[in-house]
């Protein structure tokens, strides 16, 4: 069992959870992920490690509610336990001193890019951070990211904060003005794809972190296969980071949709049944009522 030591709602449907997992915290490297299972009937879901605290023995994950499992996860609170957490999985990021590294994060991809940016900076690189969100209300991890970079940029789709436009557009603008040796782009698949399209004419190596459907996360099932440079790779053991300019994003996006119908059904059932938070509070009310009634009966008899 793995205890949740902290849960925070950062913005609408974006949560940060800190988990007690000392062995994983001791070994975790930037770029790696965990696979967790919330309860006995739960599925195994992969989530990138957003941070780790070796001294405290905890790891943090940043996630967006996209389906039943993440909704369920968001309904848990500090003190609750997850039945299974496995990791650290996947290959760590290759952190080297290359000069200037541009770390671009979109949405909850910020979680994954945070320890990477930090590690590049610690390795003596000049780090430029670009963060992109749909709107200013959805901005997360700004202080954390500012703390690990030399130059900070932010953009929003609606222009409510910073540069108006997508991450790829802002990256393009920076590449035209500045000299960058390596780009890291982590976020929604479409964002990673457009950043790669942007960096290709600049001939700058661009590393992305892919998030296909996974089961075991150890190379056993092949559910997470992706095509990179025309070769099939298992994202969980060969990745999750790949040279983005070689990635077949069409295939990735198609494979991410395999269980759309089932995911919808699960979510509807969860909401309809009011499992999770609502169910819990109802149970608590009932328990108290029952207890009170029991005491009444005792008094009467």
């Amino acid at each position: 069992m793995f205890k949740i030591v902290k849960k925070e709602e950062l913005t609408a449907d974006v949560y940060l959870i800190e988990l007690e997992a000392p062995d994983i915290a001791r070994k975790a490297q930037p770029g790696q992920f965990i696979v967790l299972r919330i309860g006995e009937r739960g599925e195994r879901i992969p989530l990138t490690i957003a941070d780790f605290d070796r001294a405290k023995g905890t790891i943090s994950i940043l996630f967006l509610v996209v389906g039943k499992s993440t909704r369920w996860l968001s309904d848990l609170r500090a003190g609750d336990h997850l039945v299974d957490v496995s990791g650290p999985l996947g290959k760590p990021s290759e952190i080297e001193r290359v000069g200037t590294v541009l770390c671009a994060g979109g949405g909850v991809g910020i979680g994954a890019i945070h320890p990477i940016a930090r590690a590049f900076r610690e390795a003596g690189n000049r780090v430029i951070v670009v963060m992109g969100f749909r709107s200013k209300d959805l901005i997360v991890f700004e202080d954390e990211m500012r703390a690990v970079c030399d130059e900070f940029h932010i953009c929003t789709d609606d222009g409510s904060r910073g540069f108006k436009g997508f991450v790829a557009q802002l990256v393009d603008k920076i590449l035209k003005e500045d000299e960058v040796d390596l780009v890291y782009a982590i976020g929604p698949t479409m964002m990673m794809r457009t950043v790669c399209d942007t960096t290709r004419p600049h001939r700058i190596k661009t590393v992305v972190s892919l998030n296909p459907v996974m089961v075991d996360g150890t190379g056993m099932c092949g559910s997470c296969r992706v095509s990179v440079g025309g070769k099939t790779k298992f994202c969980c053991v060969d990745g999750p980071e790949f040279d983005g300019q070689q990635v077949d994003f069409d295939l990735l996006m198609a494979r991410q949709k395999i269980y759309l119908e089932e995911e919808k059904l699960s979510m509807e059932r969860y909401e309809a049944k009011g499992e999770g938070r609502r169910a819990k509070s109802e149970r608590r009310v009932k328990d108290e009522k029952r207890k009170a009634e029991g005491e009444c009966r005792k008094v009467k008899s």
Partner: protein
Amino acid sequence: MEKSKKAMVLKRVQMPERAPGVRVTNFNEVALGYSPERAIQEASRCLQCKDSPCRRGCPVEVDIPAFVKCIKEGDFTGAIREIKKKNFLPAICGRVCPQENQCERFCVLGKKRDPLTIGGLERFAADHGRDKNPLDEPSKPKPTVKRVAVVGSGPAGLTVAGDLARVGHEVTLFEGLHKPGGVLVYGIPEFRLPKEIVEFEVDYVRQLGVEIKTNAVIGKLFTIDELFKRGYHAIFIGVGAGLPLFMGIPGENLDGVYSANEFLTRANLMKSYLFPEYDTPIKRGGRVAVVGGGNVAVDAARVALRLGADEVYLVYRRGEAEMPARAEEIRHAKEEGIIFEVLTLPVRLLGKNGWVCGMECVRVELGEPDESGRRRPIPIKGSEFALDVDVVVVAIGTRANPLLPSTTPGLELNERGYIVADEETGRTSREGVFAGGDIVTGAATVISAMGAGRKAARAIDEYLKK
């Protein structure tokens, strides 16, 4: 009288099975096991040969005549006690061992007609032991203060762990997934091996004193060197051959194309046949083609059928006689209505909007034997045809998972990535590191992995005494 008695001795007592029409609608166990009367009747056929040739066929050396004698005399508890001296997983082995190639192959009765149903009797004794009075706790041995790490909780790992705990070593069993059992829980389906039984037998190993740590992917969470640093004196690696092979034909990454490992893991370990009660989804229904001819392929085909497929094809590039699957499983599959497309080679998968919709195949004939000794399939020109399919399961085998070896410097591997280990002792090129099971031999059977585990346990015990 004499004649009919002889006939009775020659003919095996059949084990009842669920009717095909009923069993394809659920995941309940197909073979139902012997009743006590039938078990006694079957056990009475045993000739109690002095040299017990059957034992030669058992990789874990179960005293077969002894336990069969107990059953014959109605001493069912005695029977299971006798088996457990050598085999911790009798309810599992009684169900999934290919006895026809092992103990039963050497049975003298088989020379005339039917060999003794040793597997069925082992299963009976084990089930009896589980249902009835719990067996007396194994007596605790004197601790040796030696610590052993066993990596992988499949059949090899469970055997090593059990054997070493029995002689007093402190054993930790590390499992990468969230449930112990390896292929017994993720691979073999419920209708062939109920998971409740696996849990019971894994629990027995736990009772022997073995500590089981799940969610521990060795090579990631700890390396082999880190385990030594944590105070383990010897390490056994039994991680299986877990990486699925694909055919390398166009269209294999289309949605709806699974490896058998994924398909079976979803269905068995994650219980996706109970979706949405359980959260892990799997594609159900439609037309399913399973590619391959081994037990895993047959399992996947029968799972697909139970998930509600309209039609299930088993596509194999050699003939039925060449199929590596057990004859009994092939019979079960046929009874259940699986369509065998043998001498057929898939060449291309066709897709529509990202989903697989067809499998282009070519018929083959068998030519001269290849280096594996099996006859080589040669495509017949002009025999191309296409199957309409909604789901494809690729069950053509596995290869070694490099996850652990790649983080273990000095561990010698062969050219295919399997660990080089001594056949008799499991010794590897690394001091104190032993290995056995599929990660040494390539994909094989539950019982051969257990046999390797037994030998390695003996060698580890010797090593620790030094």
